[in-house]
């Protein structure tokens, strides 16, 4: 869906991008991850031509973006930035209607659409439509930013550290809700972040970048299991195995309940990482697993967690 071919960006003598090749499949959520200054935001902005590459080509579908009118191109791409960039002189509703208005939709259509979008991101339209951005909390503003980017139903979303400016609990909630939305909407998403946990949590694939190059492009599981270069190994750090456990649903590790019945229990919707943490905290070797109703459905043992976490291919 999005394809970068040998994209180079130079600023004077400085090369911000040194020939990036990358392909993002339709409906996938790909994060561009890396330390600041690695070129991830620059790469993102070549897609909607806020930055023009010095060399190379960016394709959306089979279309070279340079052959499209830049204004038309941008109206067809959802765009969310870290500081959100809500227009302070427009109400929430007006903010969400910006792109539909640029596209010339009728007033009724764009207003109905904007209300629908607000509801979609979990903001009661009755309450929030007339508010101004300064009257919103960070999390609410971020939701409005997302609603605004989705308003014209663009197939592609570009998100530049969209959850960077909110506190950690709010960030996790926003990530969860965004994942839920994404599982319904199936947009092709390019998502810039410097936060490894966030990338592991939400990505279909992670593109780890360093000084203008792609170091590794893989699913979170593969990336965490087998880092290809010393830089990747360093960047992921010593707790990458724990992070990998967070990608493993506990559901896959449940064994039938034997005669032994563990005293501590955990919900089956939790991750292997949560279970591991609970085992460590209690100094025990197995946990009871319950369903949503609190009914015990099996148990999980420390040994199976260890097997799942070991770096050997199963």
């Amino acid at each position, binding site marked *: 869906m999005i394809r970068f071919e040998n994209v180079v960006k130079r600023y004077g003598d400085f090369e911000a991008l040194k020939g990036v090749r990358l392909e993002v499949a339709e409906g996938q959520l790909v994060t561009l991850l890396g330390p600041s200054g690695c070129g991830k935001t620059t790469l993102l902005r070549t897609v909607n031509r*806020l930055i023009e590459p010095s060399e190379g080509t960016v394709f959306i579908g089979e279309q070279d973006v340079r052959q499209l009118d830049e204004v038309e*191109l941008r109206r067809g791409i959802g765009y969310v930035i870290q500081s959100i960039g809500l227009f*302070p*002189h427009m109400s929430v509703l007006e903010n969400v209607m910006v792109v539909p208005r640029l596209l010339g939709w009728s007033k009724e259509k764009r207003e109905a659409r904007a209300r629908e979008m607000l509801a979609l991101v979990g903001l009661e339209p009755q309450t929030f439509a007339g508010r101004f951005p*300064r009257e919103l909390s960070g999390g609410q503003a971020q939701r409005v930013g997302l609603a605004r980017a989705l308003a014209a139903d663009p197939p592609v979303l570009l998100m530049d550290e969209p959850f960077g400016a909110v506190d950690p609990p709010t960030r996790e909630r926003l990530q969860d809700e965004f994942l839920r939305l994404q599982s319904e909407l199936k947009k092709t998403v390019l998502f810039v972040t410097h936060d490894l946990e966030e990338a592991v949590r939400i990505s279909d694939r992670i593109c780890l970048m360093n000084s203008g190059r792609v170091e590794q492009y893989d699913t979170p599981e593969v990336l965490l299991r087998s880092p290809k270069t010393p830089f990747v190994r360093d960047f992921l750090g010593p707790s990458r195995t724990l992070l990998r456990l967070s990608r493993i649903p506990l559901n896959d590790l449940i064994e039938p309940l034997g005669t032994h019945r563990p005293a501590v229990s955990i919900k089956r919707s939790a991750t292997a990482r949560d279970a591991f943490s609970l085992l460590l905290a209690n100094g025990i070797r197995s946990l009871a697993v319950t369903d949503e109703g609190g009914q015990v459905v099996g148990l999980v043992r420390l040994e199976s967690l260890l097997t799942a976490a070991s770096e050997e291919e199963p």
Partner: protein
Amino acid sequence: MRETPPRYLDPVAGLAAGLGVLALLLPWLELKSSRIAPGEPFHVWDWQGFGALALLILWAGVARAQGPAQVGLLGLALLAWGLLTGQGADALLSGQPESARVSPAGGFWLTLLALYVGYFAAYRQGGWILLTVLLGLALLLGLGAFERLGPLMEFQSWREQFFTELWRHLSLSGSAVLLAVAVGVPLGVLAAGNPRMGWVLGVTGFLQTIPSLALFGLLLPLLAAISQGLRLEIALGAIVLGMFAFRLLWAVSGWLAVSLALSLGLLALAMAGAWLNSLLGPDPLRIVLGAPLQESGVRGIGAAPAVLALTLYALLPLVLNTYTGLRGVPEDARDAGRGMGMSPEQLFWRVELPLALPLILEGIRSAASLTIGITTVAALIGAGGLGFFILRGVEGGAPDMVLLGAVPIILLALLVDSALRFASMALRRRVGI
């Protein structure tokens, strides 16, 4: 039970009361045998000892009181000020010949200042103090408290001319501000958007440092020569041709293009100023083709140089505020707008301009109150306006006539200032900055 706030002496109210008490010690009115004769001073207690005491007590109350009581006491002090003045004028003039005049003296003015300071002390009462003052002033005018004071007598004898000059004053400053907005806002936009245009700020800042009389002195001979030598259609043709020539010259030499634009721009401003002033003001508009410019009202003296100079003065606040306002637009808002597919024009009209608007309006406000003040000088070069009375009063040694010009100018400036301040505050609240 509501908690009573701690009692303390509000320094602003204290200052107002101090000024008010001090004013009672000064002569309040002057009696003159004619409008240009030297005056003989009188104190309040010379005609109304009880009134002086009452005002003293009122001022003591203003200093101590708070809230609605303070507003009420200020209103009473305002009434006492006007009524004592009216009574004094009647008392002093009784038995005097027709030509005798009573003029306000130090005590009268100082009390006015004290009331003005008191207004700010009671400002927290919001609309109530404004309402009280307006009601008090209306009551005093209705009772004719000031009718027998010198400036009002002057007004009676100059009534018709007063309104003409007031109209002229408004049309001169109005045309200047309108032209300054039309020129200054685009210049500010250019300066904000293009680093090569930074000199615009320097030039407008420099213009403001030229003393107004010197600017008139520079413009007079220049405009006089042009207006006699240049025919209207040639001037118009030169301006239109100049616009095209500018584009060509800009490619060759920036400075050449800018000097062409500046000289033709000044000519265009002078013509537009004279015509806009005739359109808005009491003097008829005349446009005569095939004759020198002076036939069309663009002369070395009169409205053309006056509006031109005033426009140049008003440019700085407008250019500067437009520039600052646009520079202050958050980069995120710009980036978001661009990223969502706004064309540069849409970004300007939908995002940048609305966000800069409160500051631009602030610029219009300072330009307007500044211009109303300097328009006074326009009378010196025959453009008229309320400065006319000041000039005639000074020449003839009639201070009451000076006041007939000066007081309305101050009131106008205050009125325009507060109206525009109100508008920009409402807008700021709407935009949220």
